[in-house]
């Protein structure tokens, strides 16, 4: 053996013998529903929330019961009339660039919610914040324009995430947060790779990296999951059988406030006529629709309320199918022979096309003739949603006050049905200013009743969340996306 050969052999032995740690890389997919315009600014209407959840932190986060619990804020108190809230911040937190997180960052991050240039949907939710005062580096005081007892619940919003003071204009190019992962490369239409934040304030996360691959089509994401190319994906009820009894996967289902709906733009004929849009909503057998889509027990039927089932402010009422009532309303509105409408849907989320097909079949006996148009999944939220006169929508669960303000308050940037009703807005204002929970509840219920009587959004049921994990994933409980403690997620060896 020559010296070179011996050296080579030595190197080989070292390489084989040394304990090489495999990278713990979690594989996910993003749906490209903003067509490549996905934003790393957490407040942007095009927020890339799956990534933003991992790189930025909130002040508060959900505990196991869904209630506010400390994240970057360790405690919060309000004055007696709930107009001023004082938050104490976590010590020793640093951003990805090494700079310290403090009260000035909180003041800045909350202050930009109302920046008109951002057109953030959060401004309809937290626009009542008058100002944020820096008391000391670890204490902020949030001063409200009117009392609000539920501020901590609204701070759970998945978009209210902390960025460094002044970083707004450059946050897309330089996404600096305090979250458990850092952006290594970003391409919403291709691959986005996040790597571990070694100095994360709750300790080093267990994963080394998370990779997102853009797959616009929901069925293609399902096939990628089946083929072992993903570690986590949402699925429909009828897809659960694909994964059941397969040791390579873990299937989870859990109560959730998520819903599909149909948005009729209240500013566009014929949906600007309240009788027409009411007819389009009451003609449906909601229980039958839910049974077809998610099974008899796969969700909870509701009457066009977006409020999740376990929320104390949810309105409870019955709304059985009323074909004759719908016909009478249409006749009253000038459509005695029924009405033709075009409904746009897309495969952007699993089941959205079938949802439209079931709606079409349900309303046909009332003389409502629905023609369906399937738009490309890629860019659906950018190109179709809030543009087409009637389209299928999808929302994740949100607390009552958040969703009722975000999606129906006059002028809100995600007011998808372009609803404008001053009585509704005033009812919400009153509800927010009412500190007695029972009195507040009756006002929130009243607001939901206004939506049922007059609104342009059809919401037949809230459905349970369903997701599938690969067998190697650890630390993801059956909960929604923004409940997950990502630093505790791991992959089995």
């Amino acid at each position, binding site marked *: 053996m020559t010296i070179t050969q011996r050296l080579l052999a030595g190197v080989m032995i070292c390489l084989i013998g040394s304990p090489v740690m495999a990278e713990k890389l979690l594989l996910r997919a993003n749906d490209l529903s903003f067509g490549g315009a996905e934003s790393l600014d957490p407040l942007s209407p095009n927020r890339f929330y799956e990534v933003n959840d991992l790189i930025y932190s909130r002040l508060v986060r959900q505990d196991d019961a869904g209630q506010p619990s400390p994240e970057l804020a360790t405690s919060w108190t309000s004055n007696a009339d709930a107009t001023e809230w004082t938050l104490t911040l976590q010590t020793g937190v640093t951003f990805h660039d090494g700079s310290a997180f403090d009260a000035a960052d909180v003041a800045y991050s909350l202050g930009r919610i109302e920046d008109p240039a951002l057109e953030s949907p959060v401004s309809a939710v937290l626009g009542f914040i008058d100002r944020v005062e820096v008391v000391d580096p670890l204490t902020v005081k949030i001063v409200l324009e009117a009392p609000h007892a539920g501020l901590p619940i609204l701070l759970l919003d998945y978009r209210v995430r902390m960025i460094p003071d002044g970083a707004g204009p450059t946050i897309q190019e330089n996404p600096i947060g305090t979250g458990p992962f850092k952006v290594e490369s970003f391409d919403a239409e291709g691959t986005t790779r996040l790597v571990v934040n070694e100095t994360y304030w709750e300790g080093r996360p267990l994963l080394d990296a998370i990779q997102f691959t853009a797959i616009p089509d929901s069925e293609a994401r399902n096939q990628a999951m089946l083929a072992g190319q993903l570690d986590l994906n949402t699925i429909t009820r*009828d897809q659960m*059988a*694909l994964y059941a009894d397969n040791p390579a996967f873990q299937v989870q289902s859990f109560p959730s406030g998520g819903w599909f709906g149909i948005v009729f733009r209240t500013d566009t004929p014929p949906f600007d006529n309240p009788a027409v849009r009411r007819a389009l909503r009451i003609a449906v057998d909601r229980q039958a629709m839910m049974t*077809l889509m998610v099974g008899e027990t796969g969700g909870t039927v509701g009457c066009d309320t977006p409020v999740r089932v376990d929320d104390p402010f949810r309105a409870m009422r019955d709304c059985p199918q009323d074909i004759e009532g719908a016909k009478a309303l249409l006749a009253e509105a000038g459509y005695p022979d029924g009405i033709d409408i075009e409904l746009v849907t897309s495969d952007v989320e699993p089941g959205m096309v079938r949802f439209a*097909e079931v709606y079409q*079949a349900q309303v046909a006996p009332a003389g409502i003739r629905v023609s*369906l*148009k*399937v738009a*490309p999944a890629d860019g659906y939220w950018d190109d179709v949603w809030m543009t087409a006169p009637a389209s299928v929508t999808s929302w994740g669960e949100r607390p009552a006050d958040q969703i009722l303000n975000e999606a129906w308050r006059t002028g809100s940037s995600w007011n998808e049905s372009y609803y404008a009703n001053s009585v509704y807005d005033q009812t919400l204002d009153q509800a927010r200013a009412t500190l007695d929970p029972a009195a507040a509840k009756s006002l929130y219920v009243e607001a939901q009743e206004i939506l049922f009587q007059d609104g342009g959004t059809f919401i037949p049921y809230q459905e349970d969340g369903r997701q599938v994990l690969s067998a190697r994933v650890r630390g993801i409980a059956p909960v929604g996306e923004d409940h997950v403690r990502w630093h505790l997620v791991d992959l089995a060896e």
Partner: protein
Amino acid sequence: MSSATILRAVLSQPSGAIGVTLVVGHVLLAVLSPLVLPHDPVAQSAELILQAPSLSHPFGTDRLGRDILSRTMLGGREAMLIATLATLVAMVWGATVGLFLALIGGRTDAYAMRIVDALSSIPGILIVMIFVAALGVGVTALIPILGFSYGLSVVYIARAAALDFVARDFVLAAQARGEARATILIREILPNVRDSLAVQGAMQWSWLLLGIASLSFLGLGVAPPAPDWGLMIADGRGVMQTAPWAVLWPMAMLSSLIVGVNLAADAFSKALGVDRQMGVRAA
């Protein structure tokens, strides 16, 4: 050759007999199926979601509990109708332009063919998708768009077939008699290239069927809930592993129709002495 002689020549080839049987069977099914449907093809039922094939539903049911046999029987009608009309559009414009260019020749021919070359470099399905996605056109508007895009290849075939004849004595004689170009085209050239064009038309039809099924699969063609093979495959692929019947039947029907058309076209081209590759009468 009389039509009966040609048909005999086609049917005497095993592949021709199979092809013609498949195509005739599909056309008969498309025409007659509304009369013999076992179930309502759009009736949804929560109790029947993804049922395996049984006596009452021999092809099983889909994700909304609809009868797949009924849907499969009807699933080719709309696509076949659109493909037929689009084939007519493609053949008429493609053949007219191709034959004229062959007859005119010279610079006009050279320039026009470069434009056709340029347009042909864009995949046909892409041209259609641009129209559908950008303009949001419906399924009826697909006919001229598909006809235009698929007609580009007809220009080549028609021109090549006609070039074989433009320098022949009978065409030169007609030109010497001072006959108009259109007359020469219709009386002298068209009868000689008719068979090539007919075979080409059959091929266009099968490509268009596949193109329309692809568009429906992508959600850009026939709108749901219409029973359509492309749509059925798109919907069923999400549960392919547990309910293969949801995709198997529409796939089998689409494939058998396309294979049938190809076998029949092959047999016809042999019987007629048309070289499908060149698109001209074999010497």
